[in-house]
């Protein structure tokens, strides 16, 4: 006479329910969907191009119609300049969308790469321990010491000539350390868990243990961390671009747009408020979703979270 006490909901359903009950997380998700939708569909909503050398890049009519001088016009639906135009007659909407795409893409790639590196190095160090662990952790400590912002700025010469993919790699290279530490300590405690020991005593080979048992049990940690890393990466990239060390003309990033628009922002606010606003909304949305995921996976301890 044995009874199975079946839990009323499976784990996945429980996680999903917790997430959707969380108002902030839901709000964040909606904003994120909006922003992503804008980034993907934006180019189809406007006849103008972000590329100034394109034939649809500059609107020469703006020079004629502008009440402010040069090519500036305020946002309006005439001529489909939803966000207005800049001093050279470029369509701000098209440029902002391009900048958004760039920043999102860079952020996503950096997060994926850095989480991938962190997971591999962290799990290896945490499972194998011994010399491997100490060597890897020493490297981590060293990289943590190097001032990443400064070094990225110094190296900007390189990656600005070889394309933004190098920037992505470098950003990822300076971003994985903290996550690796976390993965390592989780791995260290996982490996002492009886089910891992049991697998070892069954004769299951090491790589299978890591793949079949350890990784799935860390999945939630990696997802949450990866999500939050996207936000952090976006902030880093826009910061660098603002100072001219990141994405540079002729390409466009939210950071470079803000830099261009700041000088005249008080009188012509549309030049920078859309990029600034979208930036804040994007990062905010990502943080809310990331925290919502964390709450959904593990509603227990609070000090591991931001709110």
């Amino acid at each position, binding site marked *: *006479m*044995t*009874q*199975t*006490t*079946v*839990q*009323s909901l*499976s*784990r996945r359903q*429980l996680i999903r329910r*917790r997430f959707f009950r969380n108002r902030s997380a839901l709000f964040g998700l909606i904003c994120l969907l909006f922003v992503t939708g804008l980034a993907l569909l934006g180019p189809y909503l406007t006849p103008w191009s972000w590329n100034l050398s394109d034939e649809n890049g500059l609107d020469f009519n703006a020079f004629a119609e502008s009440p402010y001088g040069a090519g500036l016009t305020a946002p309006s639906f005439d001529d489909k300049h939803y966000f207005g135009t800049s001093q050279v007659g470029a369509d701000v909407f098209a440029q902002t969308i391009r900048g958004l795409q760039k920043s999102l893409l860079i952020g996503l790639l950096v997060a994926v790469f850095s989480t991938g590196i962190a997971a591999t190095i962290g799990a290896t160090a945490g499972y194998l321990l011994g010399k491997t662990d*100490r060597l890897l952790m*020493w490297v981590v400590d060293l990289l943590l010491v190097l001032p990443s912002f400064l070094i990225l700025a110094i190296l900007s010469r390189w990656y600005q000539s070889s394309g933004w993919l190098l920037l992505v790699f470098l950003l990822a290279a300076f971003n994985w350390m903290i996550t690796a530490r976390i993965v390592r300590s989780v791995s260290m405690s996982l490996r002492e*868990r*009886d*089910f891992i*020991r*049991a*697998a070892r*005593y*069954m*004769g*299951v080979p090491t790589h299978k243990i890591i793949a*079949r*048992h350890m990784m*799935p*049990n860390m999945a939630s940690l990696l997802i949450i961390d990866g999500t939050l890393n996207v936000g952090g990466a976006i902030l880093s990239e826009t910061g660098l671009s603002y100072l001219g060390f990141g994405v540079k003309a002729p390409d466009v990033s939210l950071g470079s747009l803000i830099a261009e628009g700041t000088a005249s922002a008080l009188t012509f606010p549309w030049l920078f408020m859309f990029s600034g606003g979208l930036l804040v909304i994007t990062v905010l949305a990502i943080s809310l979703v990331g925290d919502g995921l964390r709450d959904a996976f593990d*509603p227990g301890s609070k000090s591991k979270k931001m709110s």
Partner: protein
Amino acid sequence: MKKEPILQIKNLSVSFPSESGRVEAVRNVSLDVYPGEILGIVGESGSGKSVMSLSTIGLLPDAAQISGQIIFEGRNLLDLNDLQMSKHRGRDIAMIFQDPLSALNPVQTVGKQLAEALLIHQDISHEAAIKRAGELLEEMKIPKPYERVNSYPHEFSGGMRQRVMIALAIANAPKIILADEPSTALDVTVQAQVLDLLKRASVLTGASVLIVTHDMGVVAGIADRIAIMYGGKIVEDGPVSDVFENPGMPYTIGLIRSIPRVDSRQKIRLASIAGSPPSPVNLPPGCAFGPRCPAHSSICDQKIPELEPLNKDQRVACNRKDDIAGLVSSGNLYPVEPIVEIKKSQSRNVILEVKNLKKTFPLLKGQILRRRVGSVYAVDEISFSLVEGECLAIVGESGCGKTTTLLEIMNLLAPESGRIVIFGKDMAELSKSEKLAMRKDLQIVFQDPFASLDPRLPIGEAIMEPMGVFDISKADQEKRMQELLSLVGLNPLHANSFPSEFSGGQRQRIAIARAMALNPKILILDEPVSALDVSVRAGVLNLLSDLQKKLGLSYIFVSHDLSVVQHVADYVAVMYLGSIVESGPVNEVFNSPSHPYTQSLLSAVPVPDPKVEKFRKRIILEGDLPSPINPPSGCRFHTRCHVKQQKSPEDQAKCVSERPTLQAKRSSEVACHYSS
């Protein structure tokens, strides 16, 4: 003439909101506590016992909804706000928690924390408080009390920390002491010390003690009255000897009959209660014990039973208490099959042998360059052998090295020193493929069923995993897996469910099924029932002995619980600080222990029988377990040995200088210079 109760709990109900619905932890409980008595509250997980004690002291989380009354000194404590209640806490009502390491502030000295307890309620100077703190430590028999006042909690051992907690509780001479599982996390010998001190504390202060525990043996020894809780309600209460001798409620009966006793001299089959304790989220309608009760009938699902007098002092909550009176007194409520004695083959075939096994761990310090600053002598030259078809138990307290020994065997490697021989093959000489083949015959079951199964793997796959290491076809694996599930008493249809969907007892059965997958000859069991609820243990123990008989298995069974060992083992080896101090047939060792440590260990094990407990002579060990980094010279036990203390100085010197070896004594072996 009955005294006035000092505390009256009336119709207390406590519930919490949770993700899965409302949790009714305590349901309409009424209880009286009399001055100076020790009241034991017994229950398993989900019974509501801890919640009840937390309600009394007013430390439930804010989200809890409480109704009813708790009357103390004429006032209803539940009406008081935090400020008013905090005047009672620590002064009239004090509490001792289960885990002293997390209960004490890690960044403050013990003296400061004790002094604070005094300063909150008494108007004395700071110096006087510190001095009194030292006195309290002295009363708790902590060595060098006035120096240890400046130590931090992590610098004490577990037993000592719990003494500090008791000192904290009695600091202001309270009228009521609540003790929530005070000795559960401690070793048996330390537990005996702590319970002894608790009794002393009660005598010193004249306080009533409410001790909450799941251990029937502990209550039998220390309590005057006992209340048994199940599913948030009290199902039976009364004087402790009455309840043990003539229990009226089927749950109580089942509980008492399902607990192995260290002093039983025959192998009996334990009564097992089907199923497991209900979760407070999902309580059955009517009587909470109904679904598991052998005397269940339709009325049990309709009416929630309330406590009614069974006789002068005992109360029972059972809908059918009058109907089943006959069944109860004849003892047939839980029928058990008679023990089938298999004929033991005369030839004692040794299939596993360990000789002079040694394992030391280096103690490393430093971040970059790690220096060896010492060694932990976990296993210090032990020898034993396992005979085919028998169960060898290794017992000892925490830190004695028993688990390390198991892991050394499981590694299938040549040990640091000594030899391990399995099926006649020396581990040092095995090739890699031979080692892999050996894994088929030697499997392990771990202690914690929650941790030994991968939470992400459906149980069917978990059971098949060991088969996947060897070339067995998927179809064969599936078939075998279904067989195994039936073998351990589970439904094969549940193969796709996840471990979290099963109860603790069921999970352990799954772990056993997994261990049986490759038809091993030797099963190594590391505390297999310690993490399970008491009413569930019997079922798993019965399963293990059935499997052994049916399949001719041999077991190495490690445990700290001597009652369980007495029930399952044929041979027992007692370990202390990395050495085997005594080994032999279990009846002989437990009936007439020769080694002083075995004697004190046996005297410390609680027996769920008040008559026995009240008249036991306990050998209380002094002091703490020595550090395995720095074991005592000569005989490892000499620092705490009561036999040594009674010897002449020349004899004592021998204990300190010479390490005793195992010597044969009747059919056992003892390592002692002066064994009786």
